[in-house]
């Protein structure tokens, strides 16, 4: 955003859909939580946030409604650090976050950073959180070094950091050459269970030594992503589908793919697409068969040509003339109606494998562990995310149903492999009174 030009940004291609889909309770949110080795100093964090936000022009924005699309306008104010809300990933509205599309909050030794997906994806958010931590540690007087892994406050802002990489990687194609079908899903099993009232969500985090996990994966000749995906599918089958003796069901995982690894981009805004991994659940499923299915699906969906086609399809949809000239409120109505009819039961769960977060070694004495979480909703009642920081992998389960059967079964698989697990929870499923008495 140069000084002379009007300070506003178009939403990137995949962000355009998120504000349109949001309703009273649901919003595409994800969060990053960092447990420090000591209590968080809220005042210092507040100062760190005020300083850090200046380095990230694409975050320093508020969402506005235009005639045809939403857009971002530069935010003139200062973001605040809040006390963490017991309600995990509470909706970010203009009134509860001062107009920003993210929320930084803290509790005891944990820093929570919640993001509305319209503003960035996991990679962009991680860069922001790393920079915030760097500023925080520096202000605290700790000797930390960015080690070229952190966008520190003084570093120059590259205009490409806020480009829409979908547009820069878009190749014009004829409509008949596009694979619209690749974006559609099949009807799949939706996890059942008693829902929490209101926007309540249950969270369970499992922390495990990354080396142990990788060793087990090697023994089974698969990657960490394949292993977690396969174990999750097995857990869903054994705890939800098998006991109810349902007719054959398709389990479909919705897996975000970070396009920065395949296309040249340094953008801090959204640049990810998704792959669908589907299997028909049956007693014949084995860990080996599932890992190889996942391997095959991911190999197919991460080929450059396939992704390039998908990018072209989504950009084509955005540039489609009738779509562009439709006023925003009509677009929203159409999206909501089409989602009502076609969007339901297209996925069993969202599974995001973030991989290793590149944190500087100098942060290590101050950070206990770190994890990612994705919001769950009625259409997708359970989400699972895996991320590794230093030697610890955090597997996060976020759910809108009360029972913890899937998590319990998943943990059993890991412990049976001899993997050590440390578990935390927000105990949303337990009554207040029960928590007090116990």
């Amino acid at each position: 955003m140069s000084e002379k030009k009007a300070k506003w940004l178009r939403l990137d291609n995949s962000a355009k859909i998120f504000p349109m889909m949001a309703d009273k309770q649901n919003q595409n949110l994800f969060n990053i939580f960092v447990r420090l080795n000591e209590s968080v100093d809220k005042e210092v964090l507040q100062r760190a946030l005020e300083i850090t936000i200046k380095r990230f022009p694409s975050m320093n924005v508020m969402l506005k409604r235009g005639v045809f699309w939403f857009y971002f306008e530069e935010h003139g104010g200062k973001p605040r650090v809040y006390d963490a809300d017991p309600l995990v990933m509470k909706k970010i509205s203009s009134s509860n976050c001062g107009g920003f599309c993210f929320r930084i909050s803290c509790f005891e030794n944990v820093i929570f950073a919640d993001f509305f997906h319209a503003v960035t994806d996991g990679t962009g958010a991680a860069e922001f959180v790393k920079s915030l931590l760097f500023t925080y540690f520096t202000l605290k007087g700790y000797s930390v070094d960015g080690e070229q892994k952190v966008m520190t406050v003084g570093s120059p802002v590259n205009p490409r950091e806020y480009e829409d990489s979908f547009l820069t990687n878009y190749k014009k194609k004829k409509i008949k050459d596009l694979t619209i079908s690749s974006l559609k899903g099949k009807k799949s099993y939706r996890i059942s269970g008693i829902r929490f009232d209101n926007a309540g969500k249950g969270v369970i985090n499992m922390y495990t030594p990354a080396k142990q996990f990788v060793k087990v994966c090697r023994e089974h000749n698969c990657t960490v992503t394949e292993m977690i995906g396969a174990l999750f599918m097995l857990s869903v089958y054994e705890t939800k589908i098998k006991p109810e003796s349902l007719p054959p069901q398709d389990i479909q995982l919705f897996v975000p793919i970070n396009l920065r690894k395949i296309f040249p981009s340094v953008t801090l805004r959204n640049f990810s697409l998704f792959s669908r991994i589907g299997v028909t659940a049956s007693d014949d499923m084995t860990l080996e068969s599932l890992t190889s299915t996942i391997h095959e699906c991911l190999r197919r969906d991460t080929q450059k040509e396939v992704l390039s086609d998908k990018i072209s399809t989504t950009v084509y949809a955005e540039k489609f003339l009738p779509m562009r000239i439709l006023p925003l409120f009509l677009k929203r109505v159409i999206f909501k109606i089409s989602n009502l009819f076609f969007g339901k039961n297209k996925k069993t769960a969202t599974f995001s494998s973030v991989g290793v977060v590149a944190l500087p070694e100098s942060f290590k004495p101050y950070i206990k562990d770190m994890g990612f979480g994705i919001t769950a909703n009625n259409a997708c009642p359970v989400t699972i995310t895996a991320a590794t920081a230093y030697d610890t992998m955090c597997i996060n389960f976020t759910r809108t149903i009360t029972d913890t059967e899937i998590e319990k079964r998943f943990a059993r698989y890991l412990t049976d492999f001899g993997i050590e697990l440390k578990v935390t929870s927000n105990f949303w499923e337990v009554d207040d009174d029960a928590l007090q008495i116990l």
Partner: protein
Amino acid sequence: MRCKFCNVEVDCKTHICPLCHEKLTTDENDEKLLPAFPPKTAKTERKKHTHFTLTNVYLAASTIIFLVCIAVNFGLHQPTKWCWMVGAILLYGFLTMRNTVLSSSSAWIKAFWQIVMISLIMWLAQVVFDDIMTDTYWLLDLALPIIIMLSVLTLGIISCALVRRNKALLYDTLFLSLIGFLPIIFYAVGLVQKVLASAICAGFCAAVIACVVIFARKEIVDEMERRLHW
């Protein structure tokens, strides 16, 4: 703390296992553990069941008032059915609260709905009190132009006062001013008989548009660019 049933270590301050909810056996090292999430308080729970929101209280009170008015009005066999006016004004209050005060819409959209709502109330007054008000032309001839002018004036004053903080308001004023030509269009198609107020309204709004365009052309172009991008 360990859960012997799940064979996992529990890494937050609690007495039960996060997975199976069995009671945990504690040892002295557990004193150091912190909760991983802010505790679910009675307050968070209670918030879910609040029905006494301002909107609900207003709705309940106005329904009661309206029903009482209907009972009195019809019970006493009064020829003028003023209770409909009371109902309309209460409804106006509700819509103002929802769509003007609590809404995040653009200022010109809020002002536009105000013009529509006030005009409808005036029309209803004409229908209800038709025994006193025999001439119906005042509605379009006089009331509508005045309401539009007052709205444009109000929004104009607000945007001048807040121009440093919110340049977008200038754009809203410009947009709203376009509605000022509606009465003169009505005159052209024969809906309005006495042209004076309509002409003044059109002139006033033209002046406002001219002022905005002359003094804030750059801001308006910027604002148009961002709001109308497609």
